[in-house]
């Protein structure tokens, strides 16, 4: 009873919330007792609070491994804005000087986010060994499993790394972990006594709708029609940066009253923050984006998530639509489906994994380098360019080459027989991954083409049951766009100000509008 009281009080004190959301307390209590815990919580349920609060309460440092650098940076920014200052995100994009500065006083931080790549660095591991690591968090823990939708080979090395620290409690978190994946997490982290807290991931307030559409032109027509009737915060997901950009500009041209922008991972950090915060702030209505947008975004009143293209798997779809309606109000997830769209994710799968020809080419190049006595110098982008691969492909391959002992710390180790076997093993592995991803895609296509309840199909892969809303379930259960009644946000009339007026408003006139007294 007393513990409960203090936990809630601490929550109020450090984060300003009066109560926990579903699942949070159970998971936090577990680590406060020193137990290892696996938590599966729906997207948008405040997973990160599960370790942010213990990080504040426990003596020592909490380390969070997270594969998504943009998510890390967002969270750190958010925590800092809310006066949680002893936090830092370590990743390979950091300026080396800045990183050295942080390394010098690691013990000062309550919470350290780190990318799995950087956690391979011996220098960092040694530094971390010397501080008191009290809790080790694995975010997006499904990445440890080959059956998860985003397998990250670096995650397999985590248990070895954790062993070097002073036996901290482990917290593994995921929003999408099937039973197989859950078992893999426990197995690979080598913590058989891990306590599981699995919560249903279905979202009752999201209406699912799939629209069969012939081509992109028709998709745009539909969106123009929709947005000329309604204004509400909306996200439109695209499978490429290019199409997000082009469509954003096209829609803006046709919908002058809507404020539309695009967002993708190719933009500078400052531009990304700007667009993201404009959206949070209500300066924007619609964002056309790639999957890079949304992680760590905590906007509660997003009413509509459109998928302009078919996602490559149900897991990412569930994650992306989970950004709608966090305030609990009805929201819509709309997939615009064209049969030929299946080619897009197929292309993406190919781009992620090297082909057999590319594999032979890399082997030839490596042998050449070895014969010239050269090592692998350069960052992953440069090396990828040298081998004519995408960076994702090169990372994948680099990992495999290390695994088969062909590359040891940037040195090429040649052994004829071992290389022959290695080539075959990697080739088989690529084939296996392609098959797996194809199967995931087939599930997604199956959902888009499903004739029965969409909600049922979507969630049956992840859990035994789900809540069915009283009305408005999905487009196969009688929902149609025409009965959509979203809250209509009144439009602020926009006046064209001169730059002199804008400058004045921004710097001085703020004085007379609503300054707190």
């Amino acid at each position, binding site marked *: 009873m007393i513990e409960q009281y203090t936990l809630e009080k601490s929550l109020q004190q450090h984060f300003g919330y009066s109560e926990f959301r579903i699942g949070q307390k159970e998971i936090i209590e577990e680590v406060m007792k020193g137990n290892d815990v696996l938590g599966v919580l729906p997207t948008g349920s405040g997973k990160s609070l599960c370790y942010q609060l213990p990080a504040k309460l426990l003596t020592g440092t909490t380390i969070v491994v997270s594969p998504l650098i943009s998510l890390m940076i967002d969270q750190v920014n958010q925590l800092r804005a809310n006066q949680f200052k002893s936090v830092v995100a370590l990743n390979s994009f950091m300026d080396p000087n800045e990183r050295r*500065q942080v390394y010098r006083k690691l013990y000062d931080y309550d919470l350290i986010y780190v990318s799995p790549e950087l956690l391979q660095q011996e220098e960092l591991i040694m530094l971390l060994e010397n501080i008191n690591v009290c809790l080790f968090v694995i975010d997006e823990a499904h990445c440890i499993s080959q059956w998860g939708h985003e397998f990250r080979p670096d995650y397999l090395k985590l248990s070895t790394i954790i062993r070097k620290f002073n036996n901290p409690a482990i917290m593994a978190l995921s929003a999408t972990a099937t039973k197989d994946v859950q078992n893999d997490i426990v197995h690979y982290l080598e913590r058989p006594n891990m306590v599981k807290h699995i919560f249903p991931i279905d979202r009752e307030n999201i209406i699912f709708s799939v629209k069969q559409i012939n081509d992109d032109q028709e998709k745009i027509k539909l969106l123009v029609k929709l947005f000329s009737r309604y204004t509400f915060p909306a996200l439109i997901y695209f499978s490429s940066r290019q199409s997000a950009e082009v469509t954003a*500009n096209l829609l803006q041209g046709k919908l002058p009253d809507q404020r539309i922008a695009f967002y993708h991972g190719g933009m500078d950090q400052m531009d990304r923050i700007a667009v993201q915060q404009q959206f949070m702030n209500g300066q924007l209505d619609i964002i056309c984006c790639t999957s890079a947008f949304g992680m760590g975004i905590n906007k509660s009143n997003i009413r509509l998530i459109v998928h302009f293209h078919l996602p490559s798997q149900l897991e990412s779809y569930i994650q992306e639509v989970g950004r709608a309606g966090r305030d609990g109000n009805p929201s819509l997830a709309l997939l615009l489906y064209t049969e030929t769209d299946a080619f897009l994710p197929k292309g993406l799968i190919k781009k992620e994994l090297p082909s057999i020809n590319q594999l032979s080419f890399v082997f030839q190049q490596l042998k050449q380098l070895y014969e010239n006595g050269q090592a692998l110098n350069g960052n992953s982008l440069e090396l990828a360019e040298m081998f004519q691969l995408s960076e994702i492909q090169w990372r994948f391959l680099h990992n495999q080459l290390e695994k088969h002992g062909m590359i040891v710390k940037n040195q090429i180790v040649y052994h004829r027989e071992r290389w022959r076997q290695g080539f075959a093993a990697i080739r088989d592995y690529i084939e296996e991954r392609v098959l797996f991803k194809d199967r995931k895609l087939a599930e997604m296509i199956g959902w888009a083409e499903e004739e029965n309840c969409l909600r049922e199909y979507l969630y049956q892969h992840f859990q035994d049951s789900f809540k069915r809303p009283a009305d408005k379930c999905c487009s196969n259960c009688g929902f149609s766009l025409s009965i959509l009644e979203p809250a209509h946000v009144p439009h602020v009339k926009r006046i064209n100000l001169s730059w002199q007026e*804008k400058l004045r408003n921004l710097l001085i006139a703020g*004085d007379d509008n609503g300054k707190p007294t």
Partner: protein
Amino acid sequence: MKRDNISIYKGDWKLLIEGLILKCCEQIKARRTTAAIFHILTGKKSIQTVQDTHLYDLALFYGIDKSLRKNTFHELIRHLEQKALISVDESSCFQLTSQGDRWLLEHESRLALNHFNGLSYHALAPVFSERLLLLVQILTNSSMQNYSFIPIVDKKTVQVWVKSFYKTLKWNETTYLHYLHDELHTLLSMLPDKEASIFVDRLTGYRSYGKSMQQLAYRYQIPSMDIKLVWTCIIHRMLSVIQSKPTDYQLLHAIIQDAEQRSFITESAKHTHHLLQRHYSVETIAAMRKLKRNTIYDHIVEIALVDSTFPVSSFVTDEQYNEIIEAIERTKTYSLKQLKDAVADEISYFQIRLVLATIKTKKVKS
């Protein structure tokens, strides 16, 4: 994919970046590969690039597009080639065609390329603009008693600097916002309205986040590849006004005061310069610093480029100097290889480069 990329150019000859590349082609008289242009625009810190920059009068463009990707650059080169404005041979060496020449004649004045000042500002410009953007955000928010917001600039070095600067202004936010307003107002009034407007739209204030580059490009109908250059040019123009009359822009000048002093491009050359001033020989310096002798030579050329008073006579005799000058006049080229063939064997490449550096600094002076 490729076809999509081409469609960016549908407005055709509006592209500032293409004008820049053509201008570089025009200036570089020697047989050089397109990579030389790429290195100048992205501000590569190599002695070759630094020397090219000085030799071909491209100081204004040094490092003005640091985020330009190699692939994009090649795409642009290919496009200029397709339009027959430049020709590129099989060893990647380029030449401006007569059509390209005409194009420059017609359009150059409109592009206002001379407002760039890359060599002076390539390092200072981002420092200035990032500090200023963050300072405006902090002042406007704290003047409204709002201390919880996401900083628009997330570079630690910038944040640390602005924070300590802000501490000196604290409790007087409103007064300083008035100063800032007045200084920016005066400064921006010297720019064309469109540029001033772009600058103001980029600012983030209280509950109002500034526009992204892409939003600015859309709003002002500027090709997306050019918007960063337009921004850089605005910042360069602002900096040159501030530096010419620092007393009129005390607050803005305070933002850059600690970052202004930077004549050398590489820190390493600066170090060598110190040692030379203490009369160490090239051999000793190389040994002390565990560097190759040629690297030290590179530094010396770099020093000579920046400092016109640097005594080159310790490295080139008067006779050798005159011989090299004669060779330049006779062959009418700056090409190192051709000059080397035209002078006595004992004259080294280093000596030729050094002489080129000195005549270049003199020419700029005159």
